[in-house]
C-alpha cells in the first residue's frame, strides 16, 4: 500500500544538502531516505513513491525526527553528517533498528552498517530487520566489550553512538580505538540525565566533551535536539585528525 503522504504526483522530492537525504515537499515537508528495499516499511513509517525520469518509480521512506536522534540533528541543522553512500558505519545502541534502517538507506549497497545492541528483545527485532537489509551486520553483544565482536567488524569511516549510559564516552573511545579510521567521523547523542541528573545539562555536555577530547576526539559541532528531545545534545567531530585530512579541508 502507498503511504498516506504519497497521493501520487503532488509530492515533489528534492535532495537535502546532506548526501543521500531528501525532503518531500507536500502539505508538510518531511525528511526522507531512498528506500533500499522498495515496497517495505521497517517500523510502520510512511513511504512516498514518485515517478523517476525514465518512467520508473522511486520510493522514499519518511524519517521521523521524534523517533531518531540523527534525523533530529539533521533537521536541527547539523553541518557535517558523514553517513553517506559507500560509508562504513559502526552504530552503537542500535535498539530494534529503526534509525539503523535509515542509515542503511544512506550508505546504500556499497556501504556497511555494523549495528550493536545488547538487549535481547530489541536485538531480535534488529536481527530480523537485517534479513532484508544485507548491508547491516547485526551484533547482539555488549558495546562495553568490543573485543567480543572484533572478528565481526572491519575498520569503519564513522561511529555513531546512542547508548544512554553513564560511561558512554569510554564506550565510544574503546570502540573507536579498535575500529575507527584515523580522521574518521563520529556522532554521539548525549542524554544529560543518563549521565548525571544532579547538574545542569549544559555542564554534563561540557564534561562529556572533555572526556572525548582526552581520547583523541576533536569535536567540531554541538547542537541540542529541541524540540524533538529534551536535554539531549548531539556532538560530531573527527577522531585522530590526520595532517592530510586537515589539508583537504
Amino acid at each position, binding site marked *: 500500500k502507498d503511504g498516506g503522504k504519497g497521493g501520487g504526483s503532488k509530492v515533489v522530492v528534492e535532495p537535502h544538502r546532506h548526501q543521500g537525504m531528501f525532503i518531500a515537499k507536500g502539505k508538510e515537508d518531511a525528511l526522507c531516505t531512498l528506500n533500499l528495499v522498495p515496497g517495505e516499511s521497517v517500523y510502520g513509517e510512511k513511504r512516498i513513491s514518485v515517478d523517476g525520469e525514465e518512467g520508473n518509480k522511486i520510493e522514499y521512506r519518511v524519517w521521523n525526527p521524534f523517533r531518531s536522534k540523527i534525523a533530529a540533528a539533521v533537521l536541527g541543522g547539523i553541518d557535517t553528517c558523514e553517513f553517506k553512500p559507500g560509508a562504513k558505519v559502526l552504530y552503537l545502541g542500535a535498539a530494534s533498528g529503526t534509525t539503523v534502517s535509515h542509515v542503511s538507506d544512506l550508505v546504500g549497497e556499497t556501504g556497511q552498517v555494523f549495528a550493536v545492541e545488547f538487549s*535481547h528483545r530489541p536485538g531480535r527485532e534488529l536481527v530480523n530487520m537485517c534479513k532484508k537489509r544485507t548491508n547491516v551486520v*547485526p551484533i547482539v*553483544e555488549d558495546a562495553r566489550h568490543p573485543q567480543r565482536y572484533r572478528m565481526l567488524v572491519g575498520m569503519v569511516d564513522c561511529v555513531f553512538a546512542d547508548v544512554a549510559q553513564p560511561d558512554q564516552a569510554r564506550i565510544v573511545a574503546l570502540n573507536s580505538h579498535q575500529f575507527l579510521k584515523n580522521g574518521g567521523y563520529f556522532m554521539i547523542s548525549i542524554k544529560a540525565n543518563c549521565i548525571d541528573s544532579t547538574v545542569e545539562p549544559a555542564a554534563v555536555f561540557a564534561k562529556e566533551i572533555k572526556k572525548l577530547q582526552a581520547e583523541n576526539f576533536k569535536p567540531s559541532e554541538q547542537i541540542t535536539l529541541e524540540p524533538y528531545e529534551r536535554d539531549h545534545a548531539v556532538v560530531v567531530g573527527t577522531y585522530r585528525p590526520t595532517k592530510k585530512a586537515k589539508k583537504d579541508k
Partner: protein
Amino acid sequence: APMVNYIFFESASGFALFERTESEDIGKFTEEVQNSVLEMKRFGKIMRLASFLPFTSAENALTCQNEISEGILPECAVNFLSTSLPKVKEGKRAKFVVGVSEPKIGNAISETLSIPCECNDLTLELFRGIRLHFHNFIDGLKSTDLEKAQLGLAHAYSRSHVKFDVNRADKHII
C-alpha cells in the same frame, strides 16, 4: 617493552599470523606506526602475512567466534600457532613475542604454548593497520568476501544469543 615480532589476528574468514619485517626503534613508535599503517604501500613493508588458516565451514567459524568472544583459544588456533611460529627448544625461552588483540587470549597462548604475548599501545596500532588492509594480504580474498563472512557470522552469532541466552537480563532500559 619487549619486541613484538608477530601478530595473531582473528577475522571472520579465518585466523592469520603476521610477522613484523621491519623492527624500528620502539621508543618512537606511536607517531611513526600510526602514520605508516595508513597506506598499504608502507604497511606492507612493515608487516607480512606468515600464515593463514581459513575457517572450513560456518560451524567452524561460529565455534571460533563463540570461543574468541569469551577469551578462549580455539583448538584449531592452538595447532595453527604451534605449526606457524618458530619452534622453541624445550627448557629455553622463546626469542620472539606475539602481539594479541586482548590479554585473555594472550594468557591462553602463553599457558598452552609457552609463548610470551603482548597487548599494548604498539600492538593496538598494528592491529588497526591489519584490520584496515587485511584483504590485501590474503591471496584470493576480496574485500566483499570478507564483508560476506562478517555478515554471515554476525547473523549466526547474534541469532544464537537472542535465542539461547535467555538468562542474561535485559537491563538496558532508559
